[in-house]
């Protein structure tokens, strides 16, 4: 039986190279299609129904992993990935076939032999592959999002351009009538996000709400004093204006 395969790889040179190596280690394998991005790959797999798909993880548009999710029941999958500790660990854990760039002939031969064995025992792809891919996706995605759960950038209007301000630059946020005022060393700008939304999206380690209408960047705090009425008065670095800490938020400064 002649097995069919597709190669989905966004880098043309590497695609050619992989094809050439495959021809050496598995001459009977018929490469019936090549694709450079996720969309093309899905379409191709739909039309040629291959036994095996070699998928580059990082493709523009729809990523290799997303493609895999869609074709998991249709064909066997070999992932191709560049050096990436997490991905490799995830592949090992889920027992998914993978190749690490640069692909060597020895490694490819190993994979090919395993594929051959699997195909001989059952030409259909394993049923649980879809589940495995799903697991893989969630574990990889949770990893990618680990450090980025919190708001990093704030979009503001600057003249006719939209600008991104890193939250680290912000001195404090102050609630206005309809908008929220973002105060940085460079000046002030308005955003539509409310203080309440911001308090949920910002890293609570780095940003403290100190008043119903104020969230302050902790790293910008210089000193805290106390007013006669028992509220806190914050001085920020390089700023002359003082911020009031209402009593319900004073506990934040207990350890200072």
């Amino acid at each position: 039986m002649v097995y069919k395969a597709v190669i989905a790889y966004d880098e043309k040179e590497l695609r050619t190279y992989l094809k050439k190596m495959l021809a050496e280690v598995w001459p009977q394998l018929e490469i019936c299609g090549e694709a450079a991005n996720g969309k093309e790959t899905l379409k191709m797999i739909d039309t040629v129904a291959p036994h095996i798909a070699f998928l580059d993880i990082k493709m523009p548009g729809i990523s290799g992993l997303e493609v895999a999710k869609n074709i998991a029941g249709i064909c066997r999958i070999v992932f191709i990935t560049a050096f990436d500790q997490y991905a490799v660990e995830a592949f090992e854990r889920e027992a998914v076939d993978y190749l690490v760039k640069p692909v060597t002939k020895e490694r490819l031969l190993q994979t090919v032999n395993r594929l051959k064995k699997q195909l001989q025992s059952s030409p259909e792809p394993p049923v649980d592959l879809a589940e495995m891919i799903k697991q893989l996706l969630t574990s990889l995605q949770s990893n990618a999002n680990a450090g980025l759960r919190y708001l990093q950038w704030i979009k503001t209007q600057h003249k006719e351009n939209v600008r991104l301000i890193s939250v680290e630059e912000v001195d404090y946020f102050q609630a206005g009538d309809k908008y929220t005022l973002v105060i940085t060393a460079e000046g002030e700008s308005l955003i539509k996000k409310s203080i309440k939304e911001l308090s949920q999206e910002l890293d609570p380690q780095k940003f403290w709400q100190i008043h119903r209408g104020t969230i302050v960047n902790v790293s910008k705090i210089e000193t805290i004093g106390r007013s006669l009425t028992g509220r806190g008065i914050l001085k920020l670095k390089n700023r002359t204006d003082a911020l009031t800490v209402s009593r319900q938020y004073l506990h934040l400064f207990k350890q200072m």
Partner: protein
Amino acid sequence: MRRNNIMEQQYETEFIFKYWLKFKNILIDGIIIGVANTLFALAATIIGPFKNFLPNFILAHSLGITVSLVILFSILIFGPRTWKFFLLITGIDICLGLFIGLQIGFIILRYFFNIVLNWQTQNLGPQAMIAGIFASAAILYFLITKIRLRYRNEMIEREKIKRMAVEKESILANLRMLQAQIEPHFLFNTLSNILSLIDIRPEKGKSMLLDLTKYLRTSLSRTMPEKTTLSQEISMIESYLNIQKIRMNERLNYKIDVSNNIRQHSFPPMLLQPLVENAVKHGLEPKVDGGEIVIKVTEENNLLKIEVADTGLGFSDFDKSGVGIANVRERLGLLFGEKGRLIIEENKPHGVRAIIEVPINGL
């Protein structure tokens, strides 16, 4: 300068607050004042009108303790915000304290020791008041100097901590710089491309290897904190883009627009490169059609303005770019303070434009 002064005083007031809130401090100062009172009573016994130690002892203590408390509270309430105001208020308070303290002393003597004394007895009132004022001045001086000394020590400590923080920051920045230099992902991708090109198109593989060598050489020489020129930086970026161009083919186009004059400026490493890498990684690479990167450096009003514009995905993929850009901002801050700026804005109709502005005389 003026603002600093106010902040300083604010901080000083807080410090005094904290200082007096510690029981140990109050105890130590209390003992010192007690000893001083006793010595004062001894002196009064020797030179004063009463040769009896007991009334002198009681009076000295009631005076000393009252006045100390008065000084303590006026420091706490008014703080050394403006010294003239503080001294005026404290002066009034001391006189009041002396009056009350002496009166308390009389009452104690009458009720507990059956010694009847009053203001008229042998001109005691005025004499005690005058002696008391000097004693109070001594106490005031003692307390204030002590606090100031403590405060100064703390300021020195604080300064030390600040300096250590700056040092740590620069070490960390250097470390991150090293780590950021050669990304394993990039290296392995490039190597695997070269490997595949050697067989199929050896000429192209060779040129890619040359570019990688150039890139690595510049990268690795960065372990020394030497000054680099903009020209070196640009040539490194050219080799980086050449490598990426082979990988991405027609999906990546680039243009570098820098005049020869400007290229001669010295320029710190690791400022421009992360922006270009960011444009490739988060702008063009994830975009199916790819796009173009334009690097432009201009000089205006003693400012060097470096612009990296791409026509990629725009802000949508930008959230993932965390560390590289954060590093650039941090380094700009360390190197140029407020004069170094990083602006990130929309590149119309699509993509991102990152602009670095640095003062030329600061380079």
